[in-house]
């Protein structure tokens, strides 16, 4: 690791002069904690007992945009990088301090400053937790409409910095579709507002140029976000459809008729099969979620609004399809002992084929499709009827409300179930790509085949648009040791993302780039990277903002051991 560019005592003094002694830490435990996010590759190292490859020099908890501005100015004067940190729930290594620096944890900036019902705009500080934001809005009769699975552990600023997407995105859009303006501290330490009143302003939209910049152009300190009235009605339904191709075609028809369900999720055969397994074995009957409902109180009589959030992801019984995927290795294969899963996951091609075949035979159900609508009562009722009729015309079989309700009850649980897999020596990750409808099946088959050479892979289609859709691949792999796991992990990403680029898909729909996808940014944007470089020079001329991310190479950085930030294509994004 590169040594701090400045003397730690001096740095501490400089920082304390701005925020006082209690909101600066150089304690090893804090530096260690803030060295990583939820990028699975970092967990491989951690599991092997390796210390973080990169530590921040200090962690600071600012409480106002003014403090952030002063901190950035100071860091700039000292030539020290700044790394914004929200919930640390990112899955691409976006907060890893590859060139050292000062990590700014923004969670003390969490005021919901105003909610204007007449304008449908909330002014909110960046560090507010997603869950608290939506709960506060729900109490006042509004929603922002962004419900990522990570809503309990991510911040509004993190969403905006990564262009996050929630489970209801097909109606409400991704976060970037709902932003009226941002307050940003740029890399020069200046505070700017990007609002355009009704877009009356000429010139490019700075809002859209900062959204998704993952801390590389500045620190988002607050935002004006567009709200919707809280839904009065929510309607959920499950369908069955013969194949992935038939399912995506049905979704396309719904969207292109101008209908906007909030939730659209189509599971491919393997995903459907694993979803249909009850945690203890056999097939689910959909009745195992009574307790979940206890967290999600029914609407009061006469009061339309359904609860916006269920309780915490507190299921100790349902581990979701991921867990079942892994359990399959142990339970389903007679005679295999402790390392059964390892053995299974080491032969992914066989498993992908086998499980596919088993799934087909066992279920003969094709694919599961979950559709949910919500919104104003009258219009939602009509839109739901039209949507369901269109799906049936497209060959989908109506399974009634139960599958939809079940999904609703468990929707935050699945993603938190990765740790058992890691405990058992395997790894699990997700790859979310997207394309237009014309290329979607190519994208699905190419990426699935590319990952399938190395790992067991399943997929679902969510976040649908009139012009295309995203695909969310979940994969589980296994190797004997850390080095082997990392090699395998990197190969999966290399082959998967290169396949996506080859068929014209994008390498990320909503998780962002961070360190993981940096090496593939040139393939994604080609010459248009010069626009990104132009923005970087404009907003962060000294390259102190989260250097080494988004495929932007830190020019004066000392060579940091094996840094993925400066890696070329195929580097696999090593931390």
């Amino acid at each position, binding site marked *: 690791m590169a040594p701090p560019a400045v003397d730690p005592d001096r740095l501490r003094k400089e920082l304390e002069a701005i925020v006082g002694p209690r909101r600066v830490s150089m304690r090893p435990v804090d530096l260690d904690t803030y060295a990583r996010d939820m990028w699975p590759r970092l967990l491989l190292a951690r599991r092997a007992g390796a210390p973080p490859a990169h530590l921040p020099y200090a962690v600071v908890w600012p409480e106002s945009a003014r403090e952030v501005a002063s901190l950035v100015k100071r860091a700039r004067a000292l030539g020290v990088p700044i790394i914004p940190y929200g919930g640390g729930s990112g899955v691409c290594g976006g907060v890893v301090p590859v060139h050292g620096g000062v990590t700014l944890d923004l969670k003390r900036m969490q005021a919901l400053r105003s909610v204007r019902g*007449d*304008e*449908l705009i909330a002014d909110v500080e960046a560090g507010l937790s997603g869950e608290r934001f939506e709960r506060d809005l729900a109490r006042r009769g509004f929603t922002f409409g962004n419900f990522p699975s990570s809503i309990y552990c991510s911040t509004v600023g993190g969403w905006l910095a*990564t*262009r996050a*997407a929630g489970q209801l995105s097909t109606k409400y859009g*991704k976060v*970037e579709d709902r932003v*009226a303006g941002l307050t940003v501290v*740029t890399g020069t330490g200046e505070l700017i507002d990007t609002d*355009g009143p*009704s*877009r*009356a*302003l*000429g*010139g*490019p*939209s*700075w809002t859209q*140029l*900062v*959204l*998704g*910049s993952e801390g*590389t*152009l500045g620190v988002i300190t607050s935002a004006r976000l*567009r709200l919707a*009235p809280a839904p009065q009605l929510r309607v959920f339904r499950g369908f069955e459809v013969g194949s992935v191709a038939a399912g995506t075609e049905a979704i396309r028809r719904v969207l*292109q*008729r*101008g209908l906007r369900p909030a939730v659209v999720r189509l599971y491919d055969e393997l995903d459907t099969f694993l979803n249909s397994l009850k945690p203890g074995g056999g097939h689910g009957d959909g009745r195992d979620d009574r307790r979940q409902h206890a967290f999600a109180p029914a609407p009061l009589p006469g009061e339309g609004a359904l609860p916006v959030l269920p309780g915490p992801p507190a299921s100790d019984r349902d581990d979701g399809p991921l867990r079942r995927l892994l359990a399959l290795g142990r339970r389903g294969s007679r005679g295999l002992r402790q390392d059964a899963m390892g053995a299974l996951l080491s032969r992914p091609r066989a498993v992908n084929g086998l499980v596919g075949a088993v799934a087909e035979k066992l279920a003969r159900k094709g694919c599961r499709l979950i559709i949910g609508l919500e*919104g*104003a009562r009258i*219009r939602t009722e009509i839109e739901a*009827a039209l949507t369901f009729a269109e799906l049936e015309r497209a060959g989908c079989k109506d399974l009634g409300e139960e599958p939809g309700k079940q999904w609703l009850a468990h929707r935050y649980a699945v993603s938190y179930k990765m740790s058992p897999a890691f405990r058992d020596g395997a790894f699990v990750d997700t790859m979310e790509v997207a*394309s*237009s409808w*014309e290329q979607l099946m190519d994208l699905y088959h190419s990426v699935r085949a590319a990952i399938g050479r190395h790992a067991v892979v399943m997929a679902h289609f969510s*976040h649908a*648009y*009139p*012009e295309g*859709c995203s695909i969310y691949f979940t994969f589980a792999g296994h190797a004997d040791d850390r080095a082997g796991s990392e090699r395998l992990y990197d190969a999966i990403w290399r082959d998967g993302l290169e396949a996506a680029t080859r068929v*014209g898909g*994008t*390498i*990320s*729909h909503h998780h*962002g*780039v961070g360190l993981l996808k940096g090496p593939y*940014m040139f393939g994604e*944007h080609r*010459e248009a990277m010069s*626009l*990104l470089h132009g923005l970087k020079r*404009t*907003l962060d*001329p000294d390259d102190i903002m989260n250097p080494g991310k*988004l495929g932007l190479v830190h020019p004066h950085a000392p060579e940091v051991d094996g840094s993925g930030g400066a890696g070329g294509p195929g580097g696999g994004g090593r931390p």
Partner: protein
Amino acid sequence: MTAALRADLEQALGAEHVAAEDAREWRVSPGAAAEVAEVVRIAGRHGAAIIPVGSASRAPRLRGVDRSRVMVSTRRLDQVIHLDETSLLCHVQAGLTGLGLEKVLTPRGLSIGDYPPSLLGSTLGGLVAVRTPGKSSARHGFFEDAVLGLSAVLADGRTVHTRAAPRRATGPDLARALCGSEGTLGLITSVVLRIHRRPEARFLAAFVLPGVDAAVAATYLALREEAATAGLRVLDAAEAAHWYGAAVCGDGEAVVVAATAGPTDLAACDRDLITSAVRAEGGRDADLALAETWWKRRHSAEPWPGPPPSFQLTATPARLCGAYHAVRGAVTAAGAAARVHLSRFDATGAVLFVTFVDPEAGPVATAPVLTGAREAAVRDAALTAARAAGGYLFGGRARELDPYLQALRAALDPDGLMNPGALVG
């Protein structure tokens, strides 16, 4: 030196596509994106300014541009490159006009969407290159939101393609650097646009409300119930009298005409939602013919009857009525009169179109009634009042961000070649 520039341009494009406008200005019309890149490189070598020209609905800004100029017309870049009817995406060259594209789409049951038809005479490149609040549709959003990707030639002659994706999370939306940049960051050669199927059904409706405030309130009540409109216009009493005759509504009342479109049940639902909102605000049905007249004229190829609006303003939903009354008050105080309509309603606000009228002259004046200094004085008074009430004039910029815009220009175009007179001052 200027002769050398001309020779290079003629060699690259053929003499027939290079015309001298004056001693220091040439108008060129490249026929392919690669030729645009060549023109930009040539201009760069000669230190000449590059000024993109679409359908020239507005005169180029040349103030302070003290060098040779190459006016690059996109006129010949008018082809549809790829029409993807599966994804409802259309890759088109920048010089095609909206109307030109509609001609290709209509026979296939497709359309650009419910954008104000008056916009569609502009080139698609020009529509994307200039941001104004009028370029919006309640059902289909702002025009720039329909851009999923674009190709552009930068000052160094490099061509960038931002690849189309429904959405992505791979850094900032780089296409948005070009949208609204008015040719200062690059010359847009093609765009990938979202298109739509023609709606299955369309319904029209017309109402009279107790006033502009009630009409605006009814509109937002309906929008909150998620009613989507294909067009909605609020006319104050003077404006309604101008179009429909003085008998259509009483003094101080307002007329609303609306269109909804989509799957039949949904379009009917949207119309009914608007109707109930109007009733809730004390409104009543008006003759449907009002809406039919409006819709027909809106879509006709005939030139706009009467003088263009004296000025346009925009405001957010909560400020619309305040801005309206401020303008009215200021105009009256200045001893003049005006008629006003509001349209382009969506969640972000609406646009007010203000036209000065001669209270003595009856409703059919076709020429501007106020001219010269008098016009300017009344307009200034109205704008000052409107601004104080939270209204915004079109075409402004966030001055505080100018240094960043200039820095971005300098980063991409160090020699200041791309439309140097635009977006300054």
